């Protein structure tokens, strides 16, 4: 019944609009307007509407800036993130200026030069000076944008020095993240996708001693404050994306290769809660590459600790192959065959 009413309402709407349109046209014709060409009155009305639109559009944007602006991501919680935010704001100011100037010109000209019956347009086919200006000015501005952008890009993407960083692996699969800490030696042991069986969820190769002290953690990713974290990212099935919105970091995880990102967290979770006055605030990793049905629910809690809290937490996590249990290997001894195809970490 409701549906029927909706359809009726829509049909009535169309009929009303079409009949109104006819009335308008007839009225215009009676006043001596030309059937095809817009009358001067129509031109004037549409011209005025452009002016109204200009004001309404800018007010709408201002309203959004005031209302939605505060709900965008808070200050960056990593060192590189702060630089990124600065550059973002710098570029945003430039494009906002361009946007506002061009829109004022566009909509204002549309209003000012609406067609009058006894008017004639000015023949103005080209002007080399003007064209030179609006080729070279954007080029100069873009040169600055490119220079600043590439400088930061190079800085962010230069691989971290693993000897001075905390090495952590992020392993993705449908639909969760798993972390592996490199342990005392700060070196991740080798892994092979063919060894992912039973409890060996990451396919660690027990023949590699570097992996024995590795710590596999699900559910929560803890990070130490003010230390460079070097992430090695792998995937088990499809392409996912490891997206740290608050740390302004992101990298896809791609089956068959290891991808890298690194950043230095600068605000602990507790500190961020205070700054935002929100007890329930948490950092997250989100999956940001379409990866299947439950893509929208693939996330991991991130906790940034002070160095002491971090050390205490990490000490509690079990090692992959504790020294006491080395003889009782979790996985079957590695066969000769997969070894050939081992991927170096």
């Amino acid at each position, binding site marked *: 019944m409701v549906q029927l009413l909706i359809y009726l309402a829509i049909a009535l709407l169309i009929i009303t609009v079409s009949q109104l349109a006819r009335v308008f046209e007839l009225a215009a014709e009676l006043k001596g307007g030309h059937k095809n060409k817009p009358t001067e009155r129509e031109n004037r009305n549409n011209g005025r509407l452009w002016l109204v639109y200009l004001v309404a559009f800018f007010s709408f944007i201002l309203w959004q800036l005031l209302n939605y602006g505060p709900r965008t991501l808070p200050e960056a919680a990593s060192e590189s993130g702060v630089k990124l935010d600065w550059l973002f704001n710098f570029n945003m100011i430039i494009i906002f200026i*361009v946007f506002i100037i061009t829109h004022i010109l*566009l909509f204002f000209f549309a209003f000012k030069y609406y067609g009058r019956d006894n008017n004639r347009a000015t023949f103005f086919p080209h002007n080399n000076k003007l064209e030179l200006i609006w080729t070279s000015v954007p080029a100069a501005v873009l040169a600055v944008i490119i220079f600043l952008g590439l400088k930061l890009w190079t800085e962010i993407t230069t691989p971290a020095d693993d000897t001075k960083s905390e090495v952590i692996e992020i392993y993705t699969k449908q639909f969760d993240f798993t972390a592996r800490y490199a342990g005392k030696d700060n070196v991740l042991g080798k892994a092979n996708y063919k060894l992912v069986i039973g409890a060996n969820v990451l396919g660690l190769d027990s023949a590699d001693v570097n992996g024995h002290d590795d710590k596999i953690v699900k559910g929560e990713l803890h990070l130490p404050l003010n230390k460079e974290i070097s992430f090695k990212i792998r995937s088990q099935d499809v*392409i996912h994306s490891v997206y740290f919105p608050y740390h302004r970091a992101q990298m896809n995880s791609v089956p068959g290769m290891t991808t890298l990102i690194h950043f230095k967290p600068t605000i602990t979770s507790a500190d961020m809660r205070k700054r935002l006055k929100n007890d329930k605030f948490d950092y997250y990793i989100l999956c940001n590459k379409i990866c299947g049905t439950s893509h929208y629910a693939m*996330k991991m809690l991130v906790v940034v600790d002070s160095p002491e809290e971090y050390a205490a937490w990490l000490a509690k996590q079990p090692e992959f192959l504790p020294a006491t249990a080395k003889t009782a290997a979790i996985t079957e001894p590695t066969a000769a065959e997969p070894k050939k195809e081992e991927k170096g970490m």
Partner: protein
Amino acid sequence: MDIHAVNDHHDAHADHEHHHEESFVSKYVFSMDHKTISRQFLITAVVMAVVGMMMSVMFRLQLAWPHEGFALTNFILGDKWAPKGVLDPNMYMALVTLHGTIMVFMVLTGGLSGTFSNLLIPYQIGARDMASGFLNMLSYWFFFASSLVMLLSCFIETGPASGGWTVYPPLSAVAEFMPGSGLGMTMWLVSMSLFIVSSLLGGLNYIITVINFRTKGMSMTRLPLTIWAFFITAILGVLSFPVLFSAALLLIFDRSFGTSFYLSDIIVNGAPLEQTGGSPILYQHLFWFLGHPEVYIILLPALGLASEIIAVNSRKPIFGYRAMIGSMLAIGFLSFIVWGHHMFITGMNPFLGSVFVFTTLLIAIPSAVKAFNYITTLWKGNIQFTPAMLFAIGLVSTFISGGVTGIILADSALDIPIHDTYFVVAHFHIVMGLSAILGMIGGVYHWFPKLFLRKMNKTMGYIHFWITFVCAYGVFFPMHFLGLAGVPRRYYTNSEVPMFDNLMDINVLITCFAIVGALGQLIFLFNFFYSIFRGEKAEQNPYNSNTLEWTTPMAHTHGNWPGALPVVHRWPYDYSKPGEEADFIPQTVPLRPGEVDGGGH
């Protein structure tokens, strides 16, 4: 070989054929006439656009009111995909995927180029028809088959393809990864392969026709900008679509024949997949080698249409005609060397990323030139606000406001935190989706007299435009803020992540604008179909235009001009030329002694 000899020969041929009575099938179904094929493309595209729009309304309802039931959703999708009207997550993914595919390929590539290249290339260059009417007919029927297969894939048990319109493997390559990666994905690939064939047949035809079939006096620098746009678009398509075909073909091999071009180190259902040694990144390179030129394949025709509409209705020459051609050539060339900006965070070498930052940001220069030239064309004009003109000005606005955010996204470092978020969705919908659809609708209003010999209702056109333009920004502008709040695209609901809890009202606002905008399109649909049959008869040159299509009689005659082909004496933009009585001088009017062509006076 003398081209005009060929054309003259064609003349005789055309006269000869005048006496044939064509059957219904050869006239309306398997027609080789460019005007009929143009209308076939347009009607198909309108149908596909309605389908694509309905899909977006359904997933917008889900995003604004997650887990709530809607009778509309249930009515369209049935109990399996929308039990109690609540959209199924798999169907959500499928709708997002098909909405993208249909809009990008069926509506804005096939529909836009197919309709207007076919209609305007022969008309505006003064040709009897396309170089090959037969290939042109095939082009349409491949397009039709492609659209049909895409629609049919909605009716299979496992649902249509649902890996996003980019269908990245391994998600799209292994059926176990999601239901849509089964038969639905196969049908998607079949549909796209047919589409590529259609696009190549059409594109080759457009290129050959523009090069060889221009009438006497129609030099390349006397072509209307529409034709330049279609010409460059066709070249882009011919060079890039084969690469998409190779990407699709390798994906078909991986899916069906056990190869591993894109597959490596994958576990399916707890067991290692035998196929290994490939790279998913390879697919992305191949896909985006088409994917980026594709953006301009969509955009350039719309800009071309807008150039003509703005010049005619401002009653002024387009400002900087040669700069406009130069910009389009520059955009076309650059569009081939920027594809990597879609892949900054895929693990591609960062140095390669730097190169793509540089080339991508260069595109901003010719784009800026175009935008400023449009604005200057309005300056001191005598603007006639036909509905087409409103849409063309709308296009300039969205081209600018969507273009400037591209500067942020092209900057690899800044792309990191907003890649794949709603900021991107806002950017490409405004710059590509809105601009192209506004240009296309403007084109339909403007050339309706040539398409159907009748006129659309003007007042309904005004109402349609203002509703559309208000809702266009109402839908897409707030998405920038969602993106800056970190909301990833293609999430079935934002309710699973606590950090998005305070953004619900933004989604509600967007959906409300989307619904009103969609209802607004009903006005257009009514006006469109009503006017085809009952609209007022149009006269020959309703806008006092200079271009050749308005010199043809108001009837769809085979060969376009009943007598000899028109001869061109001047460029197409002599509007309001000083010293002339009328404010337009058709291209067929000879230059007066001492008169300089091409904007000199």
